[in-house]
């Protein structure tokens, strides 16, 4: 339990971290992003724009020069990331040590699995466009590099989920169908069924029609009803209702903020 004394940093031009679609305004935020998103910062994170941010806005010219020098001498990127964490005095030495270990364990993964980890991470961050691009990158690998059929089926399944969240239903259906073909999994079949029920224009291939039993369709309908019910009780919906009960000035102000937030989220999702 403590209060950490912050560095005073007169940041005028924040650093834009494209993967998360956010701007970083301080060394503490930079450390937080690095520490909590190792998959996103492992490759090419330390570039000229970051060095400029450290040098000019965080007012750490000496440290930026040191990073630049180490980078030119082909020092491992992991080491440079750990140096940033260490320098900014936001994480303890033991936490920086744990971060190094985490990076090392990720580096040991085959490239296809590393890509999938990264894509799954982006998916959880609602960055569906970026996640889908990475899943496709895995699927474009040779079969030997890609790994087993079970692994490929999982990738197709996740690609389908990403497409569905991007409202690209035809592509989502195609990905789920491929996932089913490789895994014969009930879950994949259920998702195909869900898609077809949710959107009438999405019609599964003929070979899937006999598999859509009456029982499966009933289960999917029930699940959808439950999901609809849960959505109706969502916290965000309550907040929206509360907003519309406020006086016109506060309502318009709140609505403006909410629309800006949605726009930002949507841009991140689609990018």
């Amino acid at each position, binding site marked *: 339990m403590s*209060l950490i*004394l*912050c560095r005073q940093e007169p940041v005028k031009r924040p650093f834009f971290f494209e993967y998360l679609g956010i701007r970083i305004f301080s060394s503490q935020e930079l450390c937080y992003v690095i520490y909590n998103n190792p998959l996103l910062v492992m490759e090419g994170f330390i570039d000229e724009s970051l060095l400029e941010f450290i040098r000019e806005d965080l007012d750490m010219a000496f440290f930026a020069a040191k990073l630049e020098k180490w980078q030119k001498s082909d020092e491992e990127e992991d080491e440079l990331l750990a140096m940033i964490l260490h320098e900014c005095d936001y994480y303890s030495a033991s936490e920086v040590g744990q971060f190094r270990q985490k990076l090392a364990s990720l580096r040991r993964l085959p490239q296809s699995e590393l890509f999938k980890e990264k894509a799954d991470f982006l998916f959880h961050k609602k960055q569906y466009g970026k996640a889908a691009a990475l899943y496709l990158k895995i699927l474009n690998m040779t079969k030997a590099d890609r790994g087993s059929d079970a692994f490929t089926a999982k990738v197709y399944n996740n690609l389908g989920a990403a497409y569905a969240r991007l409202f690209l239903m035809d592509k989502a259906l195609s990905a789920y169908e491929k996932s089913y073909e490789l895994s014969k999994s009930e879950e994949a079949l259920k998702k195909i069924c869900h898609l077809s029920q949710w959107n009438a224009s999405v019609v599964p291939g003929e070979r899937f029609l006999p598999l859509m039993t009456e029982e499966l369709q009933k289960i999917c309908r029930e699940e959808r009803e439950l999901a609809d019910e849960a959505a109706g009780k969502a916290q965000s919906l309550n907040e929206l209702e509360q907003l519309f009960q406020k006086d016109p000035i506060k309502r318009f102000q709140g609505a403006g903020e909410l629309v800006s937030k949605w726009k930002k989220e949507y841009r991140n999702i689609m990018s």
Partner: protein
Amino acid sequence: MDGLIIGLDLCDAYTRICCHDREKSWSIPTVICKKKDEEAWYIGEEAYAYTLVGEGIIVDKLIKMVRKDGTATLGGTKYEGLDLLKLFLKKILKLPMEEFFCEEIKQLVITMQKVDGKLMDALMYCADALGIERERVHIISHTESFVYYVLSQKKEVWGNQVGVFDLSEDSFHYHELKVQRGLRKMMVIAEHEALEESFNLDILDTPSGGKLADKILCSCVDRLMQKKLFSSVFLTGKGFECHDWAKDSMKMLCSRRKVYMEPELFARGAAFKGMDYLQDNSAYPFICICEGHLHSTVSLRVLHKERESQLIVAAAGDNWYEAKSSVDLIIDKQDYVEFLVTPMDPKQKRLVKIPLEGFPNRPDRTTRLGISFGFLDEKTMAVVLKDKGFGELFPATDAVIRQEVML
């Protein structure tokens, strides 16, 4: 040195003004007069003169008027006390500026018997209106002026205790200081007492009244200075301009110590302080504990470079009006802020805990807490705790806690 360093002793009856390193000083009644049917203003004796011949309307007790948000109607126009004070200050500051052919005020230190936040704000407003930068204006108590005046004298003057009697038209005050030599820094402890034995100076005009006043002063000297070792005693104020009435008390005062008459003691002390503001290293390396200064140190336990330390937000001896600061801290696994208040007697130190009620729940170390401190008087600290969020990762909310802490 370009620019004047002015010490201004502002009282309801008389105002004294002097400049550092300049002998000439002015002492004028704190009154302002507006000429009838004309936008012309006069202060001091001139104001009395115009009023006596019936050409002007006079206003006195300007300080009291400002304190009470009072107004005065002159020639059918209503004036705020604050505006009249501003006009008075403008006029009085012109005296040294014209005398020494200098347009610039480098430092203006105003000293007053009783200093409060409202009056300080009012004086700062006047300074703004007169085009004097706030950084150049300071307001201190008479006690503090006394400290600076005394410590600007030779060491033998303040080797032991030092007292000052201030006898003016409307009050009788006693200030006393003692220098404590510590291992690290000298400490000056100065106290002040408004004497109940105050009397109207008009009684000094008659022999019997003078005798009575002498007796009163004798009893005060006896009560206040008995059993203490004094190096020197100062006498100031209009009542001591002529001290023929104080024969017996002078005998008492002058035994075993030196007695000095210094009519502009407070204004001179203020000018010494003004000079000190301009120095990179203070010529007065001591902690001053007196009226207008904090008697306790307030600190926060913080983590810096993985080490715990006490971040001092205000130190004992700081001028409370100028002791304003703000700091940003990141909260790590705690839902409160705890201040350590350390008075002069460290045994009485205590913790003041402020829970962060209404602050959002976030992961560890993702709430930047903006803490601003200020003082309402020397015993009351005002704290504002604000949720500053954590950039775009965790946007700030409008959660704010305002609390007053008694020191």
